[in-house]
């Protein structure tokens, strides 16, 4: 690979704050022409924030950008596109009812006499599709393609805008092994054409395979860079975590007690053909790993009564249990800290106090009247126990950082003394300090005999926190791993539909 002497893209001292949190505290990044760099860091390190700024989705508070050594400014997606920077979103943005050619040229259709020039549209689209290795008719309907191919169409779309920098945010989080390999081949091909790539992933194995260089973020700051020959698993983890891994995930193994949740052939509506059986015991921390879309969230929602089970049996402490609403589940002693905190976890415009006390109101009422002092007590306790950083308990939840919001969610459930606490991606979008506190809390709760079931896409988190975990693939449990059998390789094997060699 021959780089130009200068950098294609250079970012200096970028700062960005959100209410309650400094997301980027002055980060820098460089990218050469035809270079593939990986940007890694724990949840909340600031990767996604930087990517959104580079793609023009949101502006930075301060900082400088240079392209080909020239200082540039960009304020919106349009500017970023004009400078040749394209973001391939984690969630795909294709219009699923349109064909591939229309998707690729959406808003930029070639025209002839005011009408869309269909011939030009399809021939150009076909050319770009071939660049990403897709030999499909350009009039294929986008929604009919599997997710891996849709992603390649997104890349083709970016290329059609003359993108020089592709930013890929966790592109493999929902891809099968084979689709991942295809994607890597395409990325390597583009690199050889001189296109630069910023690759963001939690999967260190992939990072190692693909990157010319690795940039590590920690807690909104640069933690270090690794040149090609320094890219090892241990080096990456050390920079990401900033200390030894064992210290970060401080786990005692507790004696597992009675069975708190037992699911026998439970069927969630998203995957009606794959019954699931699992169990969680008191004092145990059980993880569920798998690709995005494997049905993990849906499984927790079924346990919590959000989407009732279509079959099978559930037992809580040996008593048969069939929740038809979250209210039923709460009654039975279950709690869920959902993946989407803003939509499901909290009532954002309400205060810390109102959020923390919401599930407890019914228990603490007298003749339907609110018990204000009890309410205040619950909120104060949550703030103290979780170390929620808020000016007061009367602050609206929406003005707090993601980490503090998650702590309110946990606080409101702890006030209910749950038997089973379920957490869906407990540390997504959370800064590193809060993250550690959340792990510590999970550990303490398990120590008190609460059963904990959590879903996570972050390898290190599953490996570090779980006593035992299940791996899901396309709605079914593809394997169960005990502490001594856990490894990143075994997870990936099971998560992508493979099986463990006996």
């Amino acid at each position, binding site marked *: 690979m021959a780089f130009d002497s200068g950098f294609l893209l250079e970012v200096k001292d970028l700062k960005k704050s959100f209410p309650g949190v*400094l997301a980027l505290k002055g980060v820098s990044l460089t990218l050469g022409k035809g270079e593939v760099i990986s940007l890694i860091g724990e949840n909340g390190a600031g990767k996604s924030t930087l990517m959104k700024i580079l793609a023009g989705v949101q502006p930075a508070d301060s900082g400088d950008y240079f392209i080909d050594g020239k200082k540039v400014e960009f304020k919106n997606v349009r500017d970023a596109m004009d400078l040749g920077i394209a973001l391939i979103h984690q969630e795909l943005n294709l219009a699923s009812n349109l064909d591939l050619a229309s998707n690729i040229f959406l808003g930029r259709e070639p025209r002839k006499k005011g009408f869309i020039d269909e011939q030009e549209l399809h021939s150009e689209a076909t050319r770009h599709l071939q660049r990403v290795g897709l030999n499909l008719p350009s009039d294929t309907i986008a929604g009919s393609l599997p997710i891996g191919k849709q992603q390649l169409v997104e890349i083709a779309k970016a290329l059609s805008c003359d993108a020089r920098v592709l930013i890929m945010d966790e592109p493999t989080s929902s891809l099968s092994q084979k689709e991942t390999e295809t994607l890597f081949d395409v990325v390597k091909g583009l690199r050889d054409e001189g296109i630069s790539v910023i690759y963001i992933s939690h999967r260190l194995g992939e990072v190692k395979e693909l990157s010319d260089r690795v940039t590590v973020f920690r807690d909104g700051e640069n933690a270090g860079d690794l040149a090609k020959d320094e890219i090892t698993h241990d080096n990456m983890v050390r920079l990401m975590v900033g200390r030894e891994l064992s210290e970060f995930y401080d786990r005692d193994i507790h004696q597992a007690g009675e069975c708190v949740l037992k699911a026998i052939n439970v069927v969630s509506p998203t995957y009606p053909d794959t019954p699931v059986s699992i169990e969680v015991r008191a004092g145990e921390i059980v993880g569920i790993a798998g690709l995005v879309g494997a049905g993990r969230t849906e499984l927790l929602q079924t346990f919590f009564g959000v989407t009732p089970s279509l079959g099978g049996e559930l037992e809580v402490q040996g008593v048969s249990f069939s929740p038809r609403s979250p*209210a039923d589940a709460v009654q039975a002693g279950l709690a869920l800290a959902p993946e989407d905190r803003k939509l499901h976890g909290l*009532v954002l415009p309400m205060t810390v106090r109102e959020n923390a006390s919401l599930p407890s*109101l019914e228990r603490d009422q007298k003749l339907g009247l609110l018990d204000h002092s009890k309410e205040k007590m619950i909120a104060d306790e949550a703030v103290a126990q979780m170390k929620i*950083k*808020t000016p007061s308990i009367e*602050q609206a939840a929406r003005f707090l*950082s993601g980490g503090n919001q998650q702590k309110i969610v946990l606080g409101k459930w702890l006030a209910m003394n749950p038997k089973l606490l379920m957490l869906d991606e407990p540390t997504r979008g959370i800064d590193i300090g809060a993250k550690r506190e959340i792990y510590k809390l999970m550990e303490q709760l398990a120590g008190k005999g609460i059963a904990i079931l959590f879903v996570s896409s972050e390898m290190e988190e599953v490996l570090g926190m779980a006593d035992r975990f299940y791996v899901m693939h396309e709605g079914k449990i593809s394997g169960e791993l005990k502490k001594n059998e856990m490894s990143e390789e075994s997870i990936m094997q099971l998560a992508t539909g493979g099986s463990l060699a006996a």
Partner: protein
Amino acid sequence: MKKNVFGIFGLLVAVFVITAIADPNFLSAYNMQNTVKWSSLYGVMSIGVAFVIITGGIDLSIGSVVGLVAVVLSFLTKIHGLDPIAAIGLTLLMSVGIGLIHGLLITKAKLQPFVVTLCGLLIYRSLSRWLTDNQSLGPVPLEGDPGFENLEQILMLDFIFSGQIAIGGFFKLPTPALFLLVLAIAGSIFLRKTIWGRYLYALGNNEEGARYSGIDTDRMKIIAYVLCSFFAGIAGILFAFELGSVQPAQTGEFYELFAIAAAVLGGCSLRGGEGSVLGVIIAAAVIRIIFNSINIVGISTHLEFGILGLVILLGVIGDEILKKKMAQRQVAASEKLAVELSEKSKSNEKLE
């Protein structure tokens, strides 16, 4: 919340003073009594719709429910000679039933509130006309009516629902104001002091968030629609006695819009999750005084809706500005804390 009421109260004072200066007759005992009476009648409906708006829903059927209740009450007391207390009970039961049907259609059949209550508006209005063959009638029977034997009782009720109680030498308090007072206090306690009120605000702000917290959101929404129709039912009885003569095609027409306007001007957001009883009542009074003022100041009555529309628009814009200011203050507090904490953790690291 309290600041919102402050704004609308300021508007009330402003409208009041301007009108009083423009024409001192506005302050006459007679005109004041009228203003209090009409504000109360509108206020009762407006509190009802506020419950629904706080959940993020809407009820367009209020005016037709007012009309139907007034018609059915008159029909039962005057033409059928039913015991008037029983008739009042039945009509209130009917209004509760209407609210229950709305709530069930919205939560269980998952229909949109706008559609359900729009159909209600059409259905109840035509029921009123069909039932009476579109002939006007009132709750008080005349000689020869089957209900005439209950006249004494009905006149008593007429006093309760549309009488006046002398206070001091010259001011007579219209009884609807007492109804408003009782309902307002009850409504306020319900919203601010009970867990159900809190649930309404929570689900209005984020229905899924409330549901994931273990709240039976469907039940709470049904309760809101039932309360709304029930309040409209009480207003229907008040209007029936107040008007004396109920026009099946007209009584209550457009009242839903006045009620919604008062709720919005009083601090409710149609997005749900916001609003207070006090604000809504004050807004209902503002709307009445504006109508009154247009009348006595001598502005063309053709302009009355236009002026009302402008006032509401300005009020809502002012409210948005106020809210933005308050939000900025909270953001600033959070940011300050974040900076402090970050500096603190840095200095701690140095110590280590």
